[in-house]
Structures are given as structure tokens and as C-alpha cells.
């Protein structure tokens, strides 16, 4: 036998051993296995990590607190996680594998609406409930699916509180530009925002859809400037919004206000833009507070601190939503007194408890309803502007010209 062959056989047998060892740790008795496919690599990996870290963090915490009680028995939680490489098709195949080959008990979701939209077809087909905290598009919940539950507030309402805030600003903005990417989440945002703007009496002077991979916003920005638009609402992805803000500065385009569906709450985004992030509005359904109690983490404030210490970056609403997904499954298992998928599904439909993320309860279609707090970057800080109960802090408005900062 040649040396090369020996090495090949050696590698092959090692990988067989390794996979046997891996699968046996997973299949240990009295484990409840939660399966998920998340973006660990690929263009949205930097948001995908929130879910990887949040799922594992919640599972470790619950296991450390004694695990999950089902009747008289106690189970430990285990996580079976795949990397979908930011590829929707791969994600669908991995969820199929999770339920058909890995035989996981219950499912956690991927990040992003277009993924959740495709993957929820698998949970529905195999009748395994999926609780997902990464997809907010109303499309996910409009198909009368019974096995999909979501902990992000409806996309159609993302700008709802922002529009309320705009009514309170002096001088009130008049003309509005609505820009959105052509994917499930952003189209839902635009569809929900359009009638809200009309009802509130704003003129929608621009209503433009752009390609998801767009990097050049100079044409749109030039139009915003030439039409003298007061408020710009953008539904898109972090990369696009970074480009949008940088190009706005370089073309000296400064509307009175601009607000973005993503990016503003995350530390990474503010770091990338530095001082140029100032004045940007956004929204979040979650801000860490000691008032938000949680059975495992104490409260949301303690959770945020522990998370930062463990992973070295700030959690945002994605992370809190991911933790809520694990907790919702555990709560439902305990309520049902069973790990049977059908019984857990029925318990999820009725679940109601307090978590780091807020009160978890699902409406008829499976989606949570949480108010969006309007936030703004003010200097180094992220400031809450307008919440469910009205104004919280004064907004910095209108945004000054770029050369007057």
C-alpha cells in the first residue's frame, strides 16, 4: 500500500470515527434536541451570529438551571445547528435533514424573512413546530400555517411608531421618500408603511424599490435632493444602509430626518459609520431594562450584561428574540407536559409568559405583536425617542447639513 493510500484511509476512518462520536453525544438519553440552520458564513453572517449565540446561551442557561421538567422527568436541551452559508436553498435542505434524518424534536428558526418564509414550509410539512425570531415579514404568517411561530413584530408595522413620532416634530416633515429592497421583509414593510403615511397626511413624493444587492444609491440620493424631500424611510439591509449613509454624506444630501429598518440598533453598524451615524433614526422592539423580568436570566439588563461578557459584543433585538424562541419552546413543553410535536404546537398557540424580550404570546396567525420603540443615534449614544406610551426623550431634529455638524 502506498503512503498516499495509507494517509487517505487514515483520514477516512478518522472522519467516520469523528462523526460517530459527534452523533452519539447528540443522541444521549433524556435530551430534547432543538434543530436550527443559521447564517454562520456568507453575506449575512454578522447578523446570523446573534442567533447562534442566543440559542446556545439560552440553552446553556436553562440546562444549568436544571433543564426542562416534563411530567416527573427532567430533560436537558441540546442544539443541532447547521450553517446555511446565507443560502436559502441550502437552508431548506438542512431543515429537511434536521427533521427527517437527525430527528430533532423541535425547530428554531433561521435569520431573515426570506429564509423563514421558505423554511416554514418544512416545519408545516413535517408538522414540527418552529419558533423563529429572525423573520418579520407578514407573508410568513399569512398562509394559515399552523406550525410556524414568530417573535419579531410584524414588518408592516416597523415604521408605525416612526410615523407617529414624525407627527410630533416641529417643523413637521411634509414630503416623504419610501425606499425599500426587493425581498420579503422589505416589501412587507413598504406595503404596511404606504397606507400609514397617507392616513397621517404625508405626501409620498418618492416610492422606489431597489435591488437587494445594490451598492450605488447616488441616483436615488440625487433625486431626494432635487425633490427637496423632508423625511426618508429606508427598508433594507445593513450593507445597503451603510452605503446609503456614506453616499448621502458625500453628495451632501441631508433630509430633515432619515430612518432605517435595520442597522441602527446594532453596535457593529454604528462602529462602521463612526460619527456619520449621528442623527440616524431606527426602531427596535427591545431595549434592555431591569423591569423586563425573566425566569432564567433574572431580567433583561442582567441578560445584556452576561451576553456582552460572554460573546464580547452588544446584544440587540435579534439576540433577545433568539433567546425568547428557546424559552417559548421550553415553556410550551412544560405547559404541555410532553415533548410530542403536536402537543407542544398546541401549547405554543396558548403560551403567555414574561421573558428578557418582553411578553411572549402569539396571535391567531402565529406572530407576536410588540410595539416598536423609535431610537436615534445621538453622539455616542443610542437614545429611545418614542415608545408605546408616547415620547421618551427629545429627538435631535431636524438633521443639520453635513458641513454644519
Amino acid at each position, binding site marked *: 500500500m502506498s503512503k498516499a493510500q495509507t494517509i487517505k484511509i487514515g483520514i477516512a476512518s478518522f472522519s467516520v470515527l469523528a462523526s460517530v462520536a459527534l452523533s452519539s453525544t447528540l443522541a444521549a438519553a433524556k435530551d430534547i434536541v432543538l434543530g436550527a440552520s443559521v447564517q454562520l*458564513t*456568507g*453575506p449575512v*453572517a*454578522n447578523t446570523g*451570529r446573534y442567533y447562534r449565540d442566543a440559542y446556545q446561551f439560552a440553552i446553556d442557561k436553562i440546562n444549568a438551571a436544571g433543564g426542562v421538567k416534563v411530567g416527573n422527568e427532567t430533560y436537558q436541551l441540546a442544539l443541532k445547528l447547521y450553517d446555511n452559508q*446565507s443560502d436559502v436553498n441550502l437552508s431548506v435542505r438542512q431543515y429537511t435533514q434536521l427533521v427527517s434524518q437527525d430527528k430533532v424534536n423541535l425547530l428554531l428558526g433561521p435569520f431573515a424573512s426570506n429564509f423563514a418564509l421558505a423554511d416554514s414550509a418544512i416545519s408545516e410539512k413535517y408538522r414540527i413546530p418552529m419558533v423563529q425570531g429572525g423573520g418579520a415579514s407578514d407573508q410568513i404568517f399569512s398562509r394559515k400555517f399552523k406550525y410556524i411561530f414568530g417573535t419579531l413584530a410584524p414588518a408592516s408595522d416597523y415604521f408605525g411608531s416612526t410615523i407617529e413620532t414624525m407627527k410630533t416634530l416641529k417643523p413637521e416633515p411634509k414630503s416623504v421618500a419610501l425606499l425599500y429592497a*426587493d425581498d420579503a421583509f422589505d416589501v412587507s414593510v413598504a406595503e404596511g408603511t404606504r397606507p400609514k403615511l397617507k392616513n397621517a397626511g404625508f405626501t409620498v413624493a418618492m416610492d*422606489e*424599490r*431597489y*435591488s437587494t*444587492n*445594490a*451598492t*450605488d444609491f*447616488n*441616483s*436615488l440620493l*440625487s*433625486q431626494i*435632493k*432635487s425633490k427637496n424631500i423632508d423625511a426618508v424611510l429606508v427598508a433594507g439591509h*445593513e*450593507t445597503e444602509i*451603510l*452605503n446609503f449613509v*456614506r*453616499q448621502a*454624506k*458625500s*453628495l*451632501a444630501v441631508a433630509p430633515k430626518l432619515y430612518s432605517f429598518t435595520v442597522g441602527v440598533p446594532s453596535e*457593529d*453598524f454604528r*462602529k*462602521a*459609520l*463612526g460619527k*456619520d451615524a449621528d442623527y440616524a433614526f431606527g426602531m427596535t422592539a427591545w431595549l434592555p431594562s431591569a423591569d423586563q423580568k425573566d425566569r432564567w436570566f433574572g431580567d433583561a439588563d442582567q441578560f445584556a450584561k452576561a451576553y456582552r461578557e460572554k460573546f464580547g459584543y452588544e446584544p440587540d433585538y435579534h439576540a433577545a428574540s433568539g433567546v425568547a424562541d428557546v424559552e417559548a419552546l421550553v415553556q410550551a413543553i412544560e405547559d404541555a407536559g410532553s415533548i410530542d410535536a403536536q402537543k407542544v404546537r398546541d401549547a405554543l398557540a396558548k403560551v403567555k409568559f414574561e421573558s428578557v424580550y418582553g411578553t411572549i404570546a402569539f396571535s391567531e396567525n402565529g406572530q407576536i405583536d410588540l410595539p416598536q420603540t423609535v431610537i436615534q443615534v445621538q453622539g455616542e449614544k443610542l437614545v429611545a425617542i418614542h415608545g408605546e406610551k408616547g415620547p421618551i426623550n427629545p429627538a435631535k431634529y431636524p438633521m443639520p447639513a*453635513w458641513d454644519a455638524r
Partner: protein
Amino acid sequence: MDLLAQILVNGILLGGLYAIMALGLALVWGVLNIVNLAHGAFIMLGAYVSWHLYTYAGIDPFLGLPITVVVMFVLGYIIQRGLLNLIVRAPMFNTLLITFGLEVVLTYLAQLAFSADFRTINPSYAGNSFQLGPVVLPLARLLAFAVAIILTVAMWLFLLHTRLGRAIRATAQNLVAARLYGVEPRHLYAMTFAIGVGLAGAAGGLYGTVSQINPYIGAALTAKSFAISIIGGLDNPLGVIVGGLFLGIIESLTAAYIGPTFADVASFGVLVLVLIVRPSGLLGRTA
């Protein structure tokens, strides 16, 4: 009218950036007959080199550009001599496979090394602009445009007037004849590839100052560079400038007057048209 002027200026400046991105790809393609699918990944690496120089050593991205180019040049030379030289006589398909593999490896190594976080090279003047009549000229884009034109013209002069440049052109035109005249192809191929990667590095540094960097920007940039090379033609660096400007202007006009979702439709539509009407590019020699 003011809007149209602004849109045209935006398109021209975008085109300059496109040209510098495509320059290295077109050179390598023309001389080595390798469609380097890892070209975008090299642009991404160049952007990270500039980002590190700026963030950790405080070196201005435009002043640091020569350093980035040298680092990428050396990397390119090593990769050609150590890896691509193995398949230099292989069919086109093998070169596609190996450069595609290289793209995947570089991208994932970049994520391991630099994380998937978004980075920007953001010196205080990066967002500055000045007004010229009704038109706003963004400073960073204008500088990037100037660098692109300078590098392209320098490339052109280099290919026309230096010994190495003439050897590169000779090899591209007729390898056997070039060898008979004493050209040593291995070194020459490595030099050409290194120049191509060095140019990609320069493009990356400029890209980071006007846009954002993450490990996954490469694939889209390769596609864009590919289209520009075809539109402009492979014979002449000036063709790449024409291709870049043409594409930049068309995309800007489409985004403004038809709709931003149609920008890519327009640019790849133009690509198809050029392939039908002038298969060797706008400035390419007609066969």
C-alpha cells in the same frame, strides 16, 4: 436639467471606480487567458489591507495605496508561481475551477481572520464634497476616479513603452514567437498576474473609502469586472476605462429614470448587446 447633470456626474465617477476594478481582471484575462474568478476576492483583500493600515497605523488610504499594491503584488506573484502555474497550459475549464476554488478559500479565510463585521475606511474628509455650479462632486469618489485614470494610463504607457510591457503584449499575441525572442514565460506570467492582483488591491483600497467592506463583497465585484472587461475589450487598458464609464453612466441613468431595480438588468443587457454586436469589445479590434 440639474438632476440630469448630477446623475451623469455620478455615473462618470462610478465608472472610474468600475474601471480600476476591472483593469486587473482584463489584463490577466488578455495575457494569461485566465478568467480569474478570484479577482473580486483580491479586491476584498486589498480593501482589508488598506483598512488595517488606516485603522491600526493611521495611514491615509490614498497615501497607503502604494503599500497595499505592493502587498497584493507579492501575494499575486506567489499565488501564480505556486498555484496557477500548475495549470497554465490546462484547458480554460480547469482555470475557472481553480480560481473559483481560490475565491471560496480566500473568502472564508477572510471571515476567519477579519470576522463578518462590516468595515469602512472613513477618514474625516471621505464624505466631503464641493459644489460646481448645480452639481455636487464627492471628494473621495473624485480622488478614486483620478487614481483610476492615472493607473490606467500608466498601465497603457507601461505596456507600450517598457521592455516588460512589450514582452507581456508579445506573449499575449503569440507565445511561440515571444519565446523565440527570449521571453521567459514563467516569470512573465507571474509578473502579469502580480500586476493584476496589485491593481485589484488598489481597487480595494479605493472601494473601502467609498463603500463598505466585508468578506463577501468579492463575488459581485468579479461579476461587474467581468462585464466591464467584455464591454471594453481586452486589448487595451483604455478599453476598460471606456467600458467602466459606459456601464457607470448607464446604471446611473437607469436607476434614476427607469427604476433602481433595473440597474443590473441594464448593465447585463448591455453586456449581451455588446457580445452580439461587437464581440471583441467597444474598443477591441474587429476580427
